[in-house]
């Protein structure tokens, strides 16, 4: 049995009766057993339930009962998205035993289409990081070379799909957290338009800019998942109404006659040589397919990292206040403590990156500084959006490398947070402005490390974005996972 098939192929093979769900899930669990010790993508594996579900779905198919369109597809979910009855730890000591009493909207939508939640995957604590090294349960490693980071913060999602431990995964993208691991692990990752997917059940980090996004092996798979998880939700007032689009249909429409803008601020200085060369190749391949490429300057991008980390830290410091260990949390009694001493002691169990961002957040919001930092950061968002609006009058898409650098070694940049923050330069723009962006695996470096290309489109133009991504994907010929 080939675990390397795409989610879409899995669905058609199950429908045709070529494979059984139980067999595929059992093999997937064996695979996890075999390789996850090396990459540590999973925090929780729900083996027994997954097998029972698989059997039940096989039975439904056999008896010709109506079956959900996922047909038992094994899916992993980032451990900051709630799953009733299964731990949702956020890779934090603070929530090490936390079992959400409810399903996130995306979880229940997947379940109602007969997807099987095979387990919960690793992340940087509360999604703060871009390497998946900042997990209370230890780092995830890149399946293409386990000395290297898988990107982050949805590193568990990217690695689990790349390592054939599941067919697809849901991550969350606050500043690039779906696209970075997609790029570093050579899989496809989409950050949808803000308001497209319900955040109900996503544990907040920077709630004004983050979205849940699918990670899978192919663009078709991402379109398929988007059909299931997108749309208005009564539990989330920030979701947009009137979304009723089939993202799978017309996916192969091509990009002939379309205009693509190459963002000069994301392709010039500071981009790794091999990444730059891969980007140029991607551009010429798209031109070969009939697209017209022009250079576009978005000078507000220069301020995007400062604006992004100001907003993210401010919101994080507020969103993480609720973890005081009174109502839920790890085992630590209040006996003998005064209130402030108790919560300060409990909260010292956050990891250093989370604490650093909370301190920064407290600083930028403290009396007298709001106008200097937070408000200016908000104005940068509007400035970026205005420049993008101008750009999208001229072009249909924008393009850049997803990450300006190649994957690096575990531990290599952990002591220099600012340097690491700066590597988010190509991804944060989509979060600050709300527009969708996708990372498509495009090439391998000379050292065998993945390189992803990022495409952007205007808000709620996911259908067009996926068409372009599909076109780009069809120009590639990438190696198979050998781990």
């Amino acid at each position, binding site marked *: 049995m080939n675990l390397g098939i795409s989610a879409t192929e899995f669905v058609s093979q199950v429908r045709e009766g070529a494979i059984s769900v139980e067999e595929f899930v059992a093999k997937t669990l064996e695979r996890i057993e075999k390789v996850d010790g090396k990459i540590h993508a999973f925090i929780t594996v729900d083996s027994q339930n997954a097998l029972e579900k698989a059997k039940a779905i096989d039975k439904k198919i056999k008896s010709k009962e109506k079956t959900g369109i996922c047909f038992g597809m094994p899916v992993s979910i980032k451990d900051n998205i709630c799953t009733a009855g299964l731990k949702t730890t956020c890779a934090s000591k603070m929530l090490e035993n936390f079992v959400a009493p409810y399903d996130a909207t995306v979880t229940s939508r997947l379940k109602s289409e007969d997807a099987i939640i095979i387990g919960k995957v690793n992340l940087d604590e509360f999604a703060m990081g871009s390497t998946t090294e900042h997990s209370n349960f230890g780092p995830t490693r890149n399946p293409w070379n386990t000395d290297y980071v898988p990107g982050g913060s949805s590193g568990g999602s990217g690695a689990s799909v790349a390592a054939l431990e599941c067919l697809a995964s849901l991550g969350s993208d606050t500043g690039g957290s779906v696209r970075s691991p997609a790029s570093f692990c050579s899989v496809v990752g989409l950050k949808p338009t803000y308001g497209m997917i319900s955040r109900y059940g996503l544990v907040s980090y920077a709630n*004004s800019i983050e979205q849940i996004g699918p990670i899978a092996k192919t663009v078709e798979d991402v379109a398929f998942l988007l059909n299931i998880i997108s749309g208005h939700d009564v539990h989330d007032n920030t979701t947009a109404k009137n979304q009723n689009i089939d993202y799978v249909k017309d996916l192969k429409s091509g990009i002939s006659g379309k205009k693509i803008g190459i963002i000069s601020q994301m392709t010039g200085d500071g981009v790794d040589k091999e990444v730059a060369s891969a980007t140029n190749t991607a551009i010429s391949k798209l031109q070969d397919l009939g697209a017209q490429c022009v250079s576009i300057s978005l000078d507000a991008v220069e301020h995007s990292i400062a604006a992004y980390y*100001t907003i993210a830290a401010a919101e994080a410091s507020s969103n993480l206040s609720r973890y005081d260990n*009174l109502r839920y949390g790890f085992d630590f009694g209040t006996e003998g403590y005064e209130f402030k001493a108790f*919560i*300060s002691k409990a909260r010292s169990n956050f990891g250093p990156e989370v604490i650093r961002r909370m301190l920064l957040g407290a600083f930028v919001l403290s009396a007298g500084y709001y106008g200097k930092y937070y408000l200016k950061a908000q104005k940068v968002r509007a400035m970026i*959006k205005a420049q993008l609006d101008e750009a999208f009058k001229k072009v249909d898409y924008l393009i850049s490398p997803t990450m300006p650098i190649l994957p690096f070694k575990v531990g290599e940049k952990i002591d220099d947070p600012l340097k690491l923050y700066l590597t988010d330069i190509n991804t944060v723009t989509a979060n600050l402005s709300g527009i969708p962006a996708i990372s498509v695996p495009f090439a391998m470096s000379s050292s065998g490390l993945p390189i992803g290309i990022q495409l952007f489109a205007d808000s709620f133009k996911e259908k067009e974005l996926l068409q372009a991504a599909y076109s780009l994907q069809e120009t590639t010929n990438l190696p198979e996972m050998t781990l």
Partner: protein
Amino acid sequence: MVERKEIEHLADLVKVDLSEPEKYIKQVEQILNYFDSLDHVEFHSDDTLGIQIAKDDLRDDVYEPYGDSLIEHLKKDQNNFIRAPKMV
């Protein structure tokens, strides 16, 4: 310059005991210096982004009891209360 005292004040605001505040000084200072680059941005507009909702699309005022007994999922003390530390 960020000083130890300032880090301790911030830690007090977010309620975290820092065993080694000095570990954070250099990095926080470096990052805040970087944030100061926002001072040099020339804005041509005071606009900010934000999504909107019409009043009529807000939730209707209907009481619906939460089906599950939520307290059973929480750290429950005597008589269904949550226990808090001593307040001074």
